[in-house]
């Protein structure tokens, strides 16, 4: 049915007064142009990263008091979805960058090394992260490596990281490490590692089913820097109040984009069928309608979670509550399960043209990328964390 005036892109909400819409569209064009090549060659989406820098998308969330535009998480969520429609690797870079970058001003304090990094982000710097560590498994909240003091306020750090996404493209890598050599595994800090002060030795190659362009290779990271490059807050606080909620919202936003684009392709396919026999609703139309119900449910969950973070962004009590942690995990688990379902539904609707590896109705890349969602930070690990928390609260946010 043709309804009253609608947003230009169906499936997601795009505000008419969205101040990032035009710039996002420019980046989307470039990301879309290289998406298949990035995927095929498992190489970083360099052109789209350059475009994100040029158009201020990487700097979008820098607060006004630091000279930035102060984008809300709701705004970032829309950008991530639009990028996700075009190139999931580009969108994940955007999402992972913001999960880290926001920690700088929310938890960094006023040390010169930190404020200089905030200025760099304002000017377009790309931030990567190194949390997981060989020998620890996927648990980002424990570290073996430790910050080692050197002379005159200098510190050293060596980390054997099984994955660091887009490390070669980043202007800084935020690294978790134990506070010092005597600290327990869970007493972590976040250190800013700059390329000029860091040596990366590749230990493994990211050759995966999907999200190939994130280039999450394994690296042995050695950095020597000044202690003013350590963020003020401990990582437990940073994770609970910022990295975890922001990452889960933005990842889910990317997955929403993957699903939305798959749904668009399904719609195009059904329209083709409908043209063949105008007046008769093709069987695929019913499946498409069903798909759109699930897509809208996912969009509602993602956008609501983004808006909720914006509401309580400065309320540590809420952010550190059990109910909030469960809600943040629920979004990640729920959307990552949903995205593979949605993309699979779209594939069934499109049929053979969707099953094809390439072509304008191909769903192949979407399906492979979607499967990354449930395994990047394993849903089972999150459920295990939830299992302990579940006994403590029944609150629904």
């Amino acid at each position, binding site marked *: *049915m*043709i*309804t*009253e*005036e*609608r947003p*230009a*892109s*169906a499936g997601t909400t795009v505000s008419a007064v969205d101040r990032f819409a035009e710039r996002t569209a420019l980046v989307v064009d470039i990301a879309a142009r290289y998406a298949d090549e990035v995927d095929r060659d498992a190489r970083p989406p360099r052109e789209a990263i350059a475009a994100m820098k040029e158009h201020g998308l990487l700097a979008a969330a820098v607060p006004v008091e630091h000279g930035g535009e102060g984008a809300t998480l709701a705004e970032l969520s829309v950008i991530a979805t639009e990028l996700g429609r075009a190139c999931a690797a580009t969108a994940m870079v955007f999402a992972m960058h913001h999960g880290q970058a926001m920690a700088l001003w929310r938890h960094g304090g006023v040390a010169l090394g930190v404020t200089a990094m905030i200025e760099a982000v304002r000017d377009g710097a790309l931030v990567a992260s190194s949390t997981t560590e060989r020998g620890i498994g996927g648990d980002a909240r424990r570290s073996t490596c430790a910050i080692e003091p050197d002379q005159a306020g200098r510190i050293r750090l060596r980390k054997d990281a099984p994955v660091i996404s887009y490390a070669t493209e980043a202007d800084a890598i935020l690294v978790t490490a134990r506070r010092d050599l005597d600290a327990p595994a869970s007493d972590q800090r976040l250190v800013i590692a700059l390329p000029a002060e860091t040596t990366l030795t590749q230990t493994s190659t990211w050759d995966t089913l999907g999200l190939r362009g994130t280039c999450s290779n394994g690296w042995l990271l050695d950095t020597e820097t000044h202690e003013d490059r350590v963020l003020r807050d401990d990582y437990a606080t940073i994770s609970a109040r910022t990295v975890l909620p922001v990452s889960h919202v933005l990842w889910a936003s990317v997955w929403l984009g993957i699903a939305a684009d798959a749904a668009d392709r399904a719609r*195009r396919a059904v*329209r083709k069928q*409908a*043209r*063949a026999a*105008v*007046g008769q609703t093709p069987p695929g139309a019913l499946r498409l309608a069903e798909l759109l119900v699930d897509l809208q449910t996912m969009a509602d969950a993602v956008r609501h979670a983004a808006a909720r973070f914006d509401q309580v962004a400065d309320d540590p009590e809420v952010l550190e509550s059990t109910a909030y942690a469960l809600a943040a995990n629920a979004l990640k688990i729920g959307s990552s399960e949903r995205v593979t379902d949605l993309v699979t539904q779209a594939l069934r609707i499109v049929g053979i043209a969707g099953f094809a590896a390439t072509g304008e109705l191909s769903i192949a890349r979407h399906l492979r990328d979607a499967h990354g969602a449930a395994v990047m930070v394993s849903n089972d690990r999150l459920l295990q964390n939830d299992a302990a928390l579940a006994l403590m609260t029944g609150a629904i946010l």
Partner: protein
Amino acid sequence: MHQDPTSAATAVALVAPTTELAVRRALADHGRLVVDAMDVASIADLYALGLTSHATVNVMLAVENELDVEFPDAALHRSTFATIESIATAAETAA
């Protein structure tokens, strides 16, 4: 129905006769208008002549079929399908 030849003449957008004919045919076959689509003024309000949003979908598909074009999402507004002229203009833009 009131047809005003003056305003038809002052209309800015000029669409190819073949496009307009394709639109009229689509309306005749699928528009369920209360009048003959071949006789409707190109700027007459089709919704006032019985076009519904459901019928619009089939009109759109038929035009796409006939002219081998695809209306972009951005063109899928109610106003796009308000007159023969606006449909034809959108079809030519989509081509």
